[in-house]
């Protein structure tokens, strides 16, 4: 009898250990960063001005062939430079020292990966070496920054005051959508009603009381976060000395843009901002939000 009991106990113990092992597997392997065990590899560093959406373990490709993966991404202390460590298969150890590492996107909405184009140098990159020549990620958001705002969700708000604005077209703006200024959520959309007389949309915005210094000639625009993201109201501050008060109307508004319009504008303006973003990751940040 006691032997039978102990066999139960052993089996149950095994079951519990197995269950916790599965939990540990879920918690470590599928949530945090864990290195996938792979063959012998060597590490190469590359510094990027902007890594975009690059993630750990994203593929590293040469001529489109996967040769390794991103090992770690850290911010270099004190500098606005991302330090990306690439783990490359030992079989591909003949990479010229002057090769260029570029962050590419697979498709329009795909994942980002690092592509390496060979240079002409006779010297090759050694283990722990650095690829000096890099091109940062082409930030679609940055390129379209003139038309789009940043993503994010409004915080839980304390006291709010309401202002309202008229739009000829609110697009797919919905109640509860964030209101943002400089990309930071400062409130939310309280109501959207069609005006039966003026035949436009009357949108009521609830804005956090902390932000009560917004000039009353600021403009409100309906923007989209990302290419297929949700819509939000962006407030661009004006220059008036008087601040918006509870119940005020925001006169200057800009309606939601249709995607077709945006792409049309992007194609026209795209080439200049494209080269700017490639040349210097910071330059397009300073471009004012004009259309």
């Amino acid at each position, binding site marked *: 009898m006691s032997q039978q009991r102990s066999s139960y106990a052993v089996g149950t113990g095994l079951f519990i250990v197995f*269950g916790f092992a599965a939990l540990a597997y879920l918690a470590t392997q599928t949530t945090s960063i864990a290195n996938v065990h792979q063959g012998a590899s060597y590490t190469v560093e590359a510094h990027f001005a902007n890594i975009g959406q690059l993630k*750990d373990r994203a593929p590293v490709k040469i001529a489109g062939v*996967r040769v390794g993966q991103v090992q770690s991404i850290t911010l270099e202390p004190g500098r606005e430079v991302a330090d990306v460590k690439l783990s490359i298969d030992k079989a591909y150890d003949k990479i010229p020292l002057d090769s260029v590492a570029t962050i590419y996107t697979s498709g329009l909405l795909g994942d980002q990966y690092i592509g390496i184009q060979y240079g002409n140098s006779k010297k090759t990159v050694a283990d722990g070496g650095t690829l000096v020549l890099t091109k940062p990620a082409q930030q679609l958001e940055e390129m379209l920054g003139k038309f789009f705002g940043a993503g994010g969700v409004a915080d839980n708000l304390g006291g709010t005051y309401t202002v309202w604005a008229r739009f000829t077209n609110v697009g797919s703006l919905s109640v509860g959508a964030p209101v943002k200024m400089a990309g930071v959520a400062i409130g939310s959309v309280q109501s959207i009603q069609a005006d039966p007389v003026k035949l436009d949309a009357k949108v009521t915005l609830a804005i956090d009381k902390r932000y009560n210094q917004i000039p009353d000639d600021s403009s409100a625009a309906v923007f989209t976060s990302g290419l297929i993201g949700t819509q939000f109201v962006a407030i661009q501050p004006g220059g008036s000395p008087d601040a918006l008060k509870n119940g005020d109307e925001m006169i200057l508004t800009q309606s939601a843009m249709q995607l077709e319009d945006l792409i049309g504008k992007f194609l026209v303006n795209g080439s200049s901002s494209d080269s700017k973003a490639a040349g210097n990751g910071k330059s397009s940040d300073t471009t004012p939000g004009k259309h």
Partner: protein
Amino acid sequence: MNQRMPQDNNVVIQSLTQIGNCGLFLLTLLAAIPRSLRYIRETIRQLWFVGAMSLTIIMVCGLFVGMVLMLQLYHVLSIFGGTSASGMVVALSVYRELGPVVTALLFAGRAGTSITAEIGLMRATDQIDAMELMAVDPIAYVATPRFLAGLIAMPLLTCVFCAMAILGGHLVGVTWLGIDNGTFWSNMTAEVDLHTDIVNGVLFKSLAFGAVVSLIAVFQGFATPPTSEGVARATTRTVVASSIAILALDFVLTAFLM
């Protein structure tokens, strides 16, 4: 308490009586936990029956759920060129919904029925009454250990199920359909959150389901009319009531946790 069969034929009254009895039974169960600590061996034995013995079915089902999920998602996501996200979608859907729910349904079918049938037969063969005569508390000796075993076993089984589903998804996605291995994992690790998905999704839900399924199984066992037909009916009722309770509770929990 369990002898009292509802006299009224009204379905609403009957089910309300059942729910009320079930709630009272839960209190009795919980009150018996200190007394059942004496029978810790029995709890371990039940954990072996409901947990360890369910591992095979849980693992096989988890593997196939992950595989079929990946197969379906791959074809849908390839329309949008988003196949690289399929590993992440498999992980999120398994953690948040499929893992806890399917494990609980399997657990109700595999362990819940056997608990009900066992206790029902104990009643039918007067073993419960014999225990009472021997001054052994049947709640503390029979009911609570099974309830606790179900409560402990469900989260562990769900973890195993989820792990197998991820492996199944990996098997189909990476080795068969050719999704990049690093992309598969990096998308998953980037999107899966330890708190909302693993703790709230997997652990909390499965704990709640484990409590509900084992409560219903033990309760139905004790409420079994002491006939062979009664045992058959009680077993069926366990599966039906557990399934409904799991899916309804899943909706409520999701609404609260999201």
